[in-house]
């Protein structure tokens, strides 16, 4: 924990010195990770990175079966012109959990758009938990967030995405710019979840009752697993957020929880409690909150 704190502090200290190479329109960063099962252990067998995206060493806070990784992006935020790509493979029988050390940021752009692509492939018998912390979309940010999850056989995936439009702590609203969202989850090539959005700064969608209803924070918690059934849905429905609005629904092989609220914290706490209910059923393990979340 101390070690992680040190990393985070060091990274925070480095923030001003991280700027793209002179002449470049923005960062081009890639991170490729592959996890495989070796006996009872999940091993990070491949780690490839270009530019300022990386993962520190593989962590084993809950025994050797589950490998935790913390995806670091030292510039701490995405600026106009940046292009980030994360590619994660979890091979048969392996179990990986990935998170981030703090809130991500989409900075105001002076013009160019930024892109972040997350590709996650999970093999038969494998589990991937993709639990990044929230992202704050600054007023004037311009970007596209693409997430593609390819599941095979009985692969299980638990994913969270929480977006906060505007730096609400400073009273900022999202009045300009645009964030485009493309999320697709497929199992054996067939789509099980598809969501596309274009959230424009100052757009009527932000205040619309069918849109964000005037709330700055929107979150989606997804569980794709053969074990998702009405019983699990009903267990999740008995858990509610302390502030804001949350609801749970069930689609074939997919549990979806949505959050709309005034701040990230209640949404995050709700997702964590849902995760606590879902994980034993879907992955056969009790919840193990990454320590980095408490720092």
């Amino acid at each position: 924990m101390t070690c992680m704190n040190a990393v985070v502090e060091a990274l925070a200290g480095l923030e001003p010195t991280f700027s793209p190479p002179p002449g470049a329109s923005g960062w081009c960063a890639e991170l490729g990770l592959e996890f495989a099962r070796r006996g009872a252990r999940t091993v990070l067998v491949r780690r490839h990175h270009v530019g300022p995206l990386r993962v520190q060493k593989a962590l084993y806070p809950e025994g050797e079966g589950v490998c935790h990784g913390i995806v670091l992006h030292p510039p701490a935020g995405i600026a106009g012109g940046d292009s980030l790509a994360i590619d994660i493979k979890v091979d048969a029988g392996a179990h990986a959990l990935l998170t981030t050390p703090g809130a991500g940021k989409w900075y105001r752009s002076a013009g160019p758009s930024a892109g972040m692509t997350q590709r996650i492939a999970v093999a038969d018998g494998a589990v991937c938990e993709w639990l990044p912390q929230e992202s704050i979309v600054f007023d004037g940010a311009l970007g596209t967030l693409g997430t593609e999850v390819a599941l095979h056989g009985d692969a299980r995936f638990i994913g969270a995405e929480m977006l906060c439009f505007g730096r609400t702590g400073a009273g900022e609203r999202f009045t300009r710019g645009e964030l485009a969202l493309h999320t697709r989850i497929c199992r054996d090539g067939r789509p099980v979840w598809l969501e596309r959005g274009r959230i424009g700064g100052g757009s009527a969608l932000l205040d619309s009752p069918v849109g964000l209803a005037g709330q700055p924070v929107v979150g989606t918690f997804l569980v794709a697993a053969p074990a998702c059934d009405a019983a699990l849905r009903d267990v999740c429905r008995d858990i509610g957020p302390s502030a804001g609005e949350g609801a749970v629904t069930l689609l074939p092989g997919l549990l979806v929880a949505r959050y709309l609220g005034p701040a990230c914290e209640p949404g995050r706490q709700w997702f964590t409690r849902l995760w606590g209910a879902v994980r034993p059923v879907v992955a056969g393990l009790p919840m193990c909150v990454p320590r980095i979340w408490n720092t």
Partner: protein
Amino acid sequence: MLPLIRLLQLASPALPVGAYTYSQGLEWAVESGAVRDEASAGRWIGDLLEWNLARFEAPLLAQLMRVWADGDDAQVAALNADFLASRETGELRAETVQMGYSLVRLLTDLDAFAARPGWRVRLRALDTPSFPAAWAAAASAWAIPVDMALPAYLWAWLENQVMAAVKAVPLGQSAGQRLLATLGACIPELAAQAARLRADQWSNFTPGLALASSRHETQYTRLFRS
């Protein structure tokens, strides 16, 4: 003239697919107080029309009509699967699957559709047909132009939503007609935009609808199935 007549039949509330039994989350919006009168009903329905229907279902329907007409059944299947995966909640998915199933049964028994060479077999071959996929098959088979089909499809949706509001809020029949007149006036432009929208510009992101529809699934007393 025949394509227009066929379109009127397809877009009519008399089409026996049970559309009138669905409110698509509107009933929860009434229960929660988000929709309580003519103005708030108009906002809810008009915003859904603009932010969800016109930006996702309508452009997808246009694309389905094109690929049905081109004989590209693999693309039909892919778009149909995308539409099913885009349904935000269990109820919204069940709705389109039931309406799609009913429309396929109807069309495959209707000579005006089924006697046209190839159509019956092609439609029956589609796995878990959604409502827009089946509707697009009929519209293509009957040579209805996309620029007529889209406004009619949006109109049928609008009429159904306004009638749901008339029952659920409740509103008077005159209020219902005022909403249809006002929101109907937006359809020509929304339909024209939808026909031009590239696939990478489609958008179905309406978290307020997703929440309302999820909550409707456990609403204690209800008239509607969604």
